[in-house]
């Protein structure tokens, strides 16, 4: 008996009928899985693979494509706007973190603390996300108008001289960051709010019993309890903001003086205005590699920190 119990468990294959029943039981799940896989394959993986292939080809979509090695990469690297595009993209991403990362979290904490009109305010905060992005961006085009724009009217009300906003290379990029932050505020706030609501109330009660005020409760309960979400959101924000396109495309056309040319905007220029999909693909591949490296390092550091805690 002892001998039998000590024997390592043997994984036995299910009888054929049982296997069929198991597949039948999970058919719905397989159906949905296949649906998702086909969608991803068509709209994400295939375009990614195609982009990688295109970046090493000269392709006019008529004749057979010609392999050109790294020529497309050389073309974009030698582009006078290449350096500006990367610097602007990094600066946009950095400024978006400074301006846009903390605001949704603070808003979520405030909303979570409110006793009244929480539903209404949640709706108000989420409203910009429901606007089509182009509409939101064009709304800001009017806000930023140096003459009759809303922002300069407000400044004027306080006796502050008007700003050039989009028309100055020193303020154009930060103006785009403000648009982006406003448009994406709702999603971040809702995600943080969901995370905050999953924190057990007892933790706050204990902290209050220990005499902790609002700031200490946020520091010692809220932040540690939502750390995982905060870390994931940080990564997602960097990945999203590095791909910024619609704001410079609709508001500044990359100007003034290339101050708002971004990598994604330059990619668009190559592919659609210059008709060079190879060079556009090369830029896209560079951006993808940079973001993959960033995500890998970030996740590893975050995991190590979690492990060492």
């Amino acid at each position, binding site marked *: 008996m002892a001998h039998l119990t000590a024997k390592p468990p043997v994984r036995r294959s299910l009888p054929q009928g049982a296997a069929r029943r198991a597949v039948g039981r999970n*058919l*719905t*799940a*397989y*159906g*949905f899985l*296949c*649906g998702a896989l*086909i*969608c991803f394959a*068509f709209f994400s993986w295939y375009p990614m693979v195609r982009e990688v292939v295109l970046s090493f080809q000269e392709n*006019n*979509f*008529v*004749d057979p494509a010609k392999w050109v090695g790294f020529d497309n990469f050389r*073309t974009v690297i*030698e582009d*006078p*706007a290449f350096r500006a595009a990367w610097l602007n993209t990094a600066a946009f991403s950095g400024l978006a973190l400074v301006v846009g990362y903390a605001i949704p979290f603070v808003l979520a904490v405030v909303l979570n603390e409110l006793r009244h009109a929480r539903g209404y305010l949640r709706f108000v905060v989420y409203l910009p996300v429901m606007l089509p992005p182009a509409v939101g961006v064009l709304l800001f085009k009017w806000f930023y*108008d*140096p*003459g*009759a724009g809303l922002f300069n009217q407000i400044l004027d009300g306080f006796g502050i001289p008007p700003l*050039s906003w*989009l*028309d*100055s*290379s020193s303020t154009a990029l930060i103006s785009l960051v403000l648009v982006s932050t406003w448009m994406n505020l709702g999603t971040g706030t809702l995600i943080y709010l969901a995370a905050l609501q999953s924190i057990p109330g007892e933790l706050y009660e204990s902290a209050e019993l220990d005499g902790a005020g609002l700031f200490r409760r946020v520091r010692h309960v809220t932040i540690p309890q939502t750390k995982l979400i905060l870390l994931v959101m940080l990564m997602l924000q960097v990945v999203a903001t590095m791909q910024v396109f619609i704001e410079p495309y609709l*508001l*500044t*056309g*990359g*100007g*003034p*003086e*290339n101050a708002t040319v971004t990598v994604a905007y330059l990619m668009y*220029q190559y*592919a*659609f*205005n*210059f*008709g060079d*999909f190879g060079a556009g693909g090369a830029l896209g591949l560079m951006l993808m590699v940079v973001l993959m490296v960033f995500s890998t390092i970030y996740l590893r550091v975050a995991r190590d920190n979690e492990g060492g805690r």
Partner: protein
Amino acid sequence: MRKTSHRRALGLLLVAGLGLTAASCGSGDEDKPAAQGSGDGTAPVTITVGCQPPKSNPKERSGWDEDVAAFQKLHPNITIQSKDAFPCINPDTFQAKLAGGTQEDVFYVYYTDVQKIIKARQAADISQYIGDVKALKDIRADVQSVFKEGDKSYGLPRNNYNMGLVYNRKLFTQAGLNPDSPPKTWAEVQEAAKKIAGLGAGYTGFGEYSAGNTGGWHFAASLYARGGSMVSDDGKSAAFNSSEGKAVLENLKKMRWDDNSMGTKQLLQWEDLMRMMGSGKLGMMIGAPDVVQSVNNDFQGKFEDYGVTAVPESEGKSSLSGGDGYMFNPKATPEKIKAGLLWLEFHELTPGKGQFNYERAKAQGRPVGLPIPDLYGDSAPGKEITALRKQFATVPVDHFTPYVSAQAGITNKLEPPKAQELYAVLDVAMSAVLTRKDADIDKLLSDAEGKANKILGRAS
């Protein structure tokens, strides 16, 4: 149990639906030469043609459909499948349509993109068939040359014009200026712009582009009018860092910062100036008569409020030409190309027919009388078209007289090679002088020249 079977059915349906979608995506038979005729000239052939007016423009659309019916009656073996779009070409989808096999057999194109398309071999060489187009001998050589590379031909023009100065006659009157005597020199433009800007807040004397590659495009227009060139004769190096190029930027800098007549909002793109012109608050801009058409049709302007004259100081010099036309899908069979040429000759090149059917346009209440397209110059069909235009005019033709009378002394000049890339480079200089008071014009031009030389030196 019932719920489970429903879910299972839903899952299967989802997979089947996506599977079918996937299968249908790959089942295109666009390129198969089936049913395209045997080449004897009478066998049935079907061609797809782009730029049918959209449903939102019912008058022009019904005119197009009438023309298709009339053409098919004349050529019973040819079937025209019209494809509507507004605007007629979208650079964002051009490559995708070509890659996906949905590009029309006879596709619409702007002059700006023609050479790029020829270089990329994305249009069919129609040299051996174009001789059948009888109108060809009368088309202006400079206009037809847009669609040529060396001896080879790749398309036919539909519209042609060159850049002038579009101005708001109503604002001229309000500002105490004579709308029948528009500015002839840049000094006069500056004076007029100051007076118009002085009408009050929100009024802009002179508007100019500086973003989305449109700034570079208008730099080229002003440069040509001053006698300058964008590139050297061999097209291998930039030539805009010249006294003419400097004068273009200095003029803008003066109007923007010294005269304060260009408004505070810059980084304007095509639609911005159209909207400003339509709103009646913009005095002048560089543009061709087609600007007036767009402002009237799509931006709430009224034909009678606008006039067009030649670009200042362009006497005896050049003006940037613009326009559009049709090219052929590189996969089109010879039968399709021949049928397409017959259609284009019928609809785009025959006085009194198709786009030149001014009698019908007048009956439909559409504007007639703009001095474009100018495809034939002074040749017999050109004179016939001008006479028809006068006969059926519905807009005040004398508002375009200064532009028309200047044409005899102006040479049309084509856009430079790698136009979009060069325009993108020059957007920087244009946006700099319009947004920065201390912009160093010499440095801007020198930087732009270096960048342009790199672009022009690159193998295409």
